[in-house]
């Protein structure tokens, strides 16, 4: 008799458990706040039209590769003052990630690797510890010809570092290589 009672209690308990945990509401979509979808680099010569370089990947980690655009050719032996804007365009309105990088500039740094006819890239900004950040920079072109400019944003790099990616370490938040023509 005891047995049956206990058994009944068991089954009942189970029934209650199962029946109350059934919910069929559809899930909410996730708001991806940290994704960077777009990097826009503006190269402004003193006088003249600015050149913009953009890398844009609206599906984030999805299968589509970023779309890279360069608005025009660079002039030879010219110094451009560069600035970088990062956006998260999966949100509307687009979220400005540049502000987050600025706020945590000790933990971030842009690295510029060039080939071909770019003479130099120099940082023009500093974080609180007087180390470079790279949200703004000066780019000086050399003679006419082809060039590449690779821009990489590292999170938590070693700071200070010798300016190379391998010495800095950290994690890559964003990287893109732009093919440029200097004329």
């Amino acid at each position: 008799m005891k047995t049956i009672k206990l058994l009944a209690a068991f089954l009942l308990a189970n029934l209650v458990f199962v029946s109350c945990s059934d919910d069929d509401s559809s899930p909410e979509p996730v708001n991806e706040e940290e994704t960077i979808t777009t990097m826009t680099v503006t190269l402004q010569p003193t006088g003249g039209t600015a050149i913009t370089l953009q890398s844009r990947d609206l599906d984030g980690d999805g299968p589509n590769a970023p779309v890279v655009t360069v608005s025009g050719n660079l002039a030879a032996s010219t110094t451009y003052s560069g600035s970088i804007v990062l956006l998260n365009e999966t949100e509307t309105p687009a979220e400005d990630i540049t502000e987050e990088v600025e706020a945590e500039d000790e933990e971030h740094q842009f690295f510029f690797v060039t080939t071909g006819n770019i003479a130099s890239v120099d940082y023009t900004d500093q974080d609180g510890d007087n180390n470079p950040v790279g949200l703004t920079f000066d780019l000086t072109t050399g003679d006419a010809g082809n060039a590449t400019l690779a821009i990489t944003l590292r999170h938590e790099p070693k700071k200070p570092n010798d300016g190379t990616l391998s010495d800095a370490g950290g994690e890559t938040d964003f990287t893109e290589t732009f093919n440029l023509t200097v004329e």
Partner: protein
Amino acid sequence: MKTLFFIALVAMSHFFVAAQECNNVLKGQVTDYHSKLELDDATIFIIENNRETKTNKNGKFRFDDLCSGTYQIEVSHPECTTIIVDVQVQGTTNIDIKLEHHLEELDEVDVVGDAIRNKTKSAQEEKLKLKTLELYSAGNLGDALKELGGVSSLNTGANIVKPTIHGLNGSRVLILNDGVRMQDMEWGDEHAPNIDINSAGSISLIKGASALQYGGDAIGGVIVMEQAKIPVKDTLYGKTLLSGVSNGRGGNITSELTRAFGGGWFIKGQGSYKRLGDHEAPDYILSNTGVQEIGASLQFGKNLFTWGWDARYSYYTTEIAILRASHIGNVDDLIRSINNGEPEIIRSFTYDLQNPRQEVKHHLGKLRFYKRFEGLGKLNVQYDFQNNRRFEFDVRRGEEDDRASIDLELTTHTISTDFKWDAKEDYKLQVGLLGRYQDNFANPSTGVRRLIPDYNKYDLGAFVTGEYRVNDQLLLEAGLRYDFSQIDADKFYRTSRWEERGYDQEFQDLVVQDLGTDLLVNPVFDYHNVSASFGLSNYFQDGSNLKFNYALAQRAPNPSELFSDGLHHSAARIELGDLRIDSETSHKFSASYHKKFDHWGFNIEPFANWISDFILLEPADVEFTIRGAFPVWEYRQTDARLLGVDVNVEADWLSNLNSEHQFSLVKGTDTENNGALINIPAANFRNKLTFTKPQWNDFEVSLVSNYVFRQNEVPDNIMVFSPEQQEEVLLEINTPPDAYHLLGLDSQMKFPLGKSTVLTTALRVDNILDIRYRDYLNRQRYFADNLGRNIILQLKLNY
């Protein structure tokens, strides 16, 4: 009339007692509880007057000339459990005594400790006893199991250790925790079993799917963790074990207390706490590899031979810091880490657990009831509840460090029942039913796309297993099981991914809602799986034993294999599941031959496992994102073959010097592409030399040598485009590390501190020579060396 009779009775009994006449007779019969057969040669001993007799051929006995009164008699039989019964003797008293005639049926037998019975009769099976488990008190389940042949582990550092049996792990290895199948998101490579090793009394390991009562999908095997038996007598006992660990500069404390009563009632509590800081490799600190673990359980019930029930609740929580240097951004970061040879981030020692880290909580509740029916068998009914909550914290930008990137909650309810006919000596039959409901909730507030979607899962299972003893030498066993499972998920796909996978051609009808860049999809998939097992065990005249087993097992794909869709920072890879994946089917043949001579013995266990539609995760492609290039790892199905052998030799050299030698080999082949399978453990050779001297406080010392070969059979490396180097480079993710040889030492002594108190001290040293090495099955091998020397000192108090 009644009253009168009663008065007469009272008066009479008074008269008898007063008279103390000593011409009473006690007679009776002793029978087997299950088969009702009469037991001859059972000893009947009257404790009060030291008189003793034995039963005759018909199980009968008789004592003459007894004084009237109450006696305690002890009934024993060589093949049965001894019992004590109270009997009132008056005139000629007749009693029937039923003895439990199954020594292997230890469920309710009066012993404490590590007596374990086999779960199967024909499969390859090994056991870890309490004594060995205690040595790993400050370690984890996966490490302890590696003491057994054929077991290795898939690690993520030293704290996340997934047991691997004959080359298979994760969803292919079932873990039964005190009769409850663990539901702790075992589908993730970096998810360790959520179990406190200190809560187990013993562990059995079945290498294969032959134990159908536990599930039909154990293509790798089953790990059965059991509680120590609690005696049916009035007693109170416990133990406390304290371990100090040098590598990690911390330790572990565990304590348990059991109170049992003569009436079968018992209550047992257990708790443990572990805390370690950063681990150390021989040359550097492994920054951010600390761990904290808390386990507690409470169990109570009534435990009689004929019926009983018990309730158990256990709680386990762990917080595991993941090597900081293993969190990387893209394929260039991975190449850099592989080339560096040393982790990029080495900080000074700390106990802090920083990001990346995991935090897991597991609740387990169980109610079990059993009843034994005389001459028939035993009925079991069980309900269990599990809740598993997993947080994974990444290195994030902004003030996001305390916000998890992964937040999953898995809730499982299971009800199961089985009946075992064990009354007959020559055959046994067990049938069972199971129903399970599971709910997974992926919290959207993480701000990171869900790696695993919300889903509901329903399982129904039914099995029948039986064994037949043909004669004293030969035993046959067979089983059949059917499992139905349905998974009903709600998942968001990026529209671009949905189309890239070709799902818009095949699964467009599953789309519930189109959000522009995303689609909400509701896949509902059913799986019907059949598993079967057949085996035999034969004892030869010379004492050797041959076992053979064939197991057919089918496993439905797990949520990760179906739905994975995202970036794994720890591996710098994009992992993609596939909705088209169907169940995999394994045919495993295994044999085991055991022979023991006077001074040595051996055990040889070959196996062959053919798996059709084997589900595996392999690098397939490269994708570009804003963060750079990532290898894409895709789940796919292929036909695979695993061949291997475990050999075990034991030898007694002197009365107090013996040695054990173990060799394990697994070869995994993708038979469709004729290539090597990924993550197959390398061959290993383990030797142990033990010296014992019982006179010196049970002194025991062992030297352990473990040689792990280089895994030469690995899939090819892949070529990826490196944006940093502006060219295609070889990504050496499949290059195996070199072979290594580790030396270890175990020693212990016992000191009695009173009537029932014993202090045991143990010293254990791992990697004595502090050698540098990396292991093929450690997911952090790209980033850092394995642990250096580790000294563990243990104090155990039994009371």
